[in-house]
């Protein structure tokens, strides 16, 4: 198990009282054919920049793990002449292919919506960032539909009590990664709130990749489609020929 250590000085203006030190249990997750999901653990401490932590400070932590961004299209089925078919579509550009939001309490209890929006925290921020101009009611319906599909398919997840403080300054987050987790480079963003205001923030990275046979197959399918097709046909011809030989009745 490799340790990814990250040190963050307080990056937010007017809040240089604390800094965050975090560590991921793994910085590489390997997806194999027997992969049924994984759990990575994030530990962090809140450290005073000078002196000691203030006694009147109430801390909250939000951890956001985001997969590689992609452009997607959401479609809506409507009944037409008795059958259900895709009628309207809306595109969402640059949305993360995966996102898990973990926090000590529900996000809306930690900070007001404007603050969360400014920091880009929470699933709502994903659709807000993909907007072009003010959304109409149709776009808003699509945004809700998009988030619902992404949540039910395990691409997006919210864990309201996913971060726990083990002591006054030490916290821990268990991040579940489902079996279908997309591969690519992930960012892990940790935000510290003091009394409802952002106090420190820091980012580290995580790589989810396929290795060995899975990597070979996936890369071949996408980068060498022609050879991959030839190999599939060769396998089929061989299987068919072999079956003919084995089961041949004289």
């Amino acid at each position, binding site marked *: 198990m490799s340790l990814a250590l990250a040190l963050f000085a307080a990056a937010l203006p007017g809040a240089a009282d604390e800094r965050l030190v975090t560590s991921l249990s793994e910085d590489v997750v390997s997806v194999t054919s027997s992969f049924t999901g994984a759990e990575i653990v994030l530990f962090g401490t809140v450290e005073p920049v000078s002196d000691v932590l203030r006694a009147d400070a109430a801390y909250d932590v939000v951890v956001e793990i985001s997969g590689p961004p992609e452009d*997607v299209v959401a479609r809506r089925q409507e009944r037409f002449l008795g059958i259900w078919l895709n009628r309207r579509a809306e595109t969402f550009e640059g949305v993360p292919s995966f996102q898990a939001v973990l926090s000590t309490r529900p996000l809306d209890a930690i900070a007001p919506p404007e603050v969360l929006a400014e920091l880009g925290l929470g699933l709502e921020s994903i659709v807000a960032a993909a907007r072009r101009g003010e959304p109409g009611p149709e776009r808003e319906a699509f945004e809700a539909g998009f988030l619902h599909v992404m949540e039910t398919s395990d*691409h997006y997840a919210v864990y309201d009590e996913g971060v726990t403080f083990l002591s006054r300054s030490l916290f821990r987050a268990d991040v579940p990664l489902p079996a279908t987790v997309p591969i690519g480079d992930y960012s892990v963003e940790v935000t510290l709130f003091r009394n409802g205001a952002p106090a420190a923030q820091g980012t580290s990275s995580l790589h989810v990749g396929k290795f060995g046979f899975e990597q070979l197959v996936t890369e071949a399918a996408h980068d060498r489609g022609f050879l991959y097709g030839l190999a599939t046909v060769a*396998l089929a011809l061989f299987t068919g020929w072999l079956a003919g030989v084995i089961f041949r009745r004289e």
Partner: protein
Amino acid sequence: MFLILAMGAAVGFLSGLFGIGGGFLLTPLLIFSGVPSAIAVATVSSQIVASSTSGTLAHMRRKGVDLKLGLTLFAAGSVGSGIGVWVYAALRSVGQLDLVIGVIYVLMLSFVGIVMLNESVRAMVAARRGRTPVLRRPGTRGWIHRLPLKVRFRQSRLYVSIIPVLALGAAIGFLGTLLGIGGGFIMVPALIYLLRVPTSVVIGTTLLQTLGSMAVTTILQATTNHTVDIVLGAMLMVGGVVGAQFGAQVGQRLRGETLRALLGLLVLSVGLRFAYDLVATPSEVYSVTTLAGAGL
């Protein structure tokens, strides 16, 4: 994974039992069990290559293949497959691939199912009354045989215009690519009734054409749409070729009409299931895909 091997074996068993390729049952089964239509259609093409290989080789040993006719159909089929792959990609990017696959399956399977049921029930009734069913004789030379550009296919003892041969090959290649079927159940009657190919070479020639155009389809799908899943395909191939052997053994012990009636019922029920999926209110009306139409 066990489920997929079992499905491959079950469909292989049915294809051996009924003497059909089975693509038009395997593709729906995969779709119903949750494999995205796009993946199911493209991957089943590779399974059809495997299942038609052993059949083609067996018929070749018996000289039951008209090579010239088979290769002509295959060449036309490749053009049809090429158009099919292009249409498939276009439909996928506008989000209508599932709908088109569903609608064509409903129409095709209900039609084939009803025709088979009707024919086999009549035959059973006639057999019970002790009469031999009157087979409709293929009519005398129709308009197809008056078309120009005639070509001789020696082994089929056939002298016919190349136009219907090319059209038939291209149509089957196109449909096969779009639907993930070999098309044998359309090709066999078309060769017998439209082109008057002797029954002794029909099956072998059809298998050769299926083998060729499905191999081309697999390569085209893998190159352009990246929807062939080699692991899924391998499991279907193994299950399919093994199941087919047992199916063929059981099939020899059943009466022809009974077999055709059973197959007709099966085909019809798969068609009805597709129809139900088209009209039933979906549990989720929204779906999210990449811009090219692939699942996330």
